[in-house]
């Protein structure tokens, strides 16, 4: 009797077939939305930006490069939602096309820095030894080095590559150093776990251990750190434009638009407000999403819910 009861309970809970993938996904999403509203907001904005980046023509109302000398410096209106700039170009359309530049930079930098950081951090953390010592000294140097010189060097030297690629290269490499420290920490921590030792005892090779055990634990850390860095990369690009480097005309980029708006603040404040807001929302969104991701993925931080 007790056995039957036990079997019934088991069937009801422990042995029930797993829900199909779609349902599980849906449930996970719903939980995410309910418990992480800020993160959800961030995710929505990110999706919006990605859509802008992929299909700008659908959303823009004008050609972002169309010059109309007669319509300069117009404020927001029905014809031009965000007004026009010093050449009469539609600001709203330029912001939509600018999303593409920001997304490319953001994701490019993250992809590059995440890859490099994982490489350096895992090898350094897991294998240790003289490579670790050497690598860490190099990372020390790289972190203490002011990045501006390095960025300018890359931008001015590799002239064959398009500007965007040069920017991604420069920023990606710079960020990867700091990130590698974090990865190294996670790799070292994971290395101490008993199941890793166990794996070694049963004869698993280094490479296998790295791929099956270390990396998955490290990925979460990298993902979180990287998603937050996207916002940073976008901000850095706009700062670079401000200083005169970065994307060149006539490409629309939020940072450039902000830079051009600098002189016009007194006569046409709307020119600075909208690109500034765009950058603000993008950075905010990536940060919030990254935070929520960390809260969800890091088992140590899961709340009482």
């Amino acid at each position, binding site marked *: 009797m007790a056995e039957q009861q036990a079997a019934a309970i088991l069937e009801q809970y422990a042995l029930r077939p797993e829900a199909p993938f779609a349902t599980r996904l849906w449930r996970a999403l719903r939980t995410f939305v309910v418990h992480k509203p800020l993160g959800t907001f961030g995710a929505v904005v990110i999706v919006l930006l990605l859509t802008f980046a992929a299909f700008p023509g659908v959303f823009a109302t004008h050609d972002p490069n169309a010059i109309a000398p007669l319509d300069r410096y117009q404020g927001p209106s029905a014809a031009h939602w965000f007004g026009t700039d010093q050449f009469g170009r539609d600001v709203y359309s330029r912001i939509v096309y600018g999303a593409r530049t920001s997304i490319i930079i953001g994701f490019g930098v993250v992809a590059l820095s995440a890859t490099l950081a994982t490489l350096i951090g895992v090898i350094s953390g897991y294998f240790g030894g003289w490579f670790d010592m050497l690598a860490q000294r190099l990372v020390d*140097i790289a972190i203490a080095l002011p990045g501006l*010189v390095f960025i300018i060097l890359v931008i001015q030297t590799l002239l064959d590559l398009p500007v965007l690629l040069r920017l991604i290269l420069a920023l990606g490499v710079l960020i990867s150093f700091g990130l590698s420290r974090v990865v190294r920490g996670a790799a070292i921590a994971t290395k101490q776990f008993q199941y890793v030792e166990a794996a070694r005892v049963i004869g698993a090779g280094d490479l296998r251990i790295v791929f099956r055990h270390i990396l998955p634990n490290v990925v979460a850390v990298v993902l979180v750190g990287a998603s937050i860095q996207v916002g940073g990369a976008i901000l850095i690009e706009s700062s670079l434009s401000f200083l005169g480097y970065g994307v060149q005309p006539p490409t629309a980029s939020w940072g450039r638009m902000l830079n051009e708006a600098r002189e016009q603040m007194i006569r046409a404040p709307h020119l*600075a*407000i909208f690109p500034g807001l765009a*950058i603000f929302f993008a950075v905010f969104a990536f940060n*919030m999403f990254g935070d929520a991701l960390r809260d969800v993925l890091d088992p140590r931080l899961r709340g009482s819910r």
Partner: protein
Amino acid sequence: MQRYLLRRLLLMVPTLLGISFVVFLMVRLVPGDVVTLISGDYGAADPEAKKAILKQYSLDQNIPKQYALWMSDILQGNLGRSIISNRTVISELQHRLPVTFELGVLALIVSVSIAIPVGIISAIRQDTLTDYAGRSFAIALLAAPNFWIAIVLITLASRYFTWGVPPREYIHFTDNPIGNLKMLAMPAFILGGALSGSVMRYTRSAMLEVLRQDYIRTAWAKGLRERVIIVRHALRNALIPVVTVIGLQVPVVVGGTVIIESVYSIPGMGRYYVSAINQLDYPVIQAIVLVVALVVVFSNLVVDMTYAIIDPRIRYS
């Protein structure tokens, strides 16, 4: 403890050497050169003049030789002479460095004052409205481009409230401390606000982690009040990683003051550094990088020392 300190101090040397060498190479790899800038439009056609100027500044020697010359100067305490202005780098920096230093310190103070309380409260009230509000606020400060805020403020000030226009010239701390602090309040807030986002994040996650520990649960079980638990037990441990993060902000501050200094006409090192880079003024760039690296490495040391003092486990590793 002493051995740890000694070991760290010794490690500083190769790091600094490495930095000096890397920067030395990097600036010379950038295409274009300072002599071209000095000669301007005419120099393009006058190779004699360029050769003469190169010679004047020993730029015509090969790189290892130049490096040796520079290193020997540094070790004698001579930071070199700016190629563009022909004044000693020390004289150029002696007024500018304290200004940036003060701005940086103020920014860090602002950042910490915002970040730690917000981070702690957010952690205690995780996933509540307070948490969301606090985090949004901190991230909002980080997300808005700081030059944008700065120019908006100055423009609004000049148009609508003229008392908000910053003084035409920089007021030195030694001349008028109150005036100086009033001037730097806005720029420090803008800079510090942007930094507070990341510090807040670390504070929050460190706090969250600590709050899950067993000893905290014991404290709850004992019936201690929340305030006592937080302040007496959780805070100390949570602040350890935060101290590290604050240390990490130092290089960011140094590079990040440039734009604020430009917009607010603050005669600091950041602005000078960027203009030196634009003009490829090698001695100045090298000297500033060295100084900054020194500050960074030293502050890392201080942070690690603090770590070691707080957490005895580290001392004996």
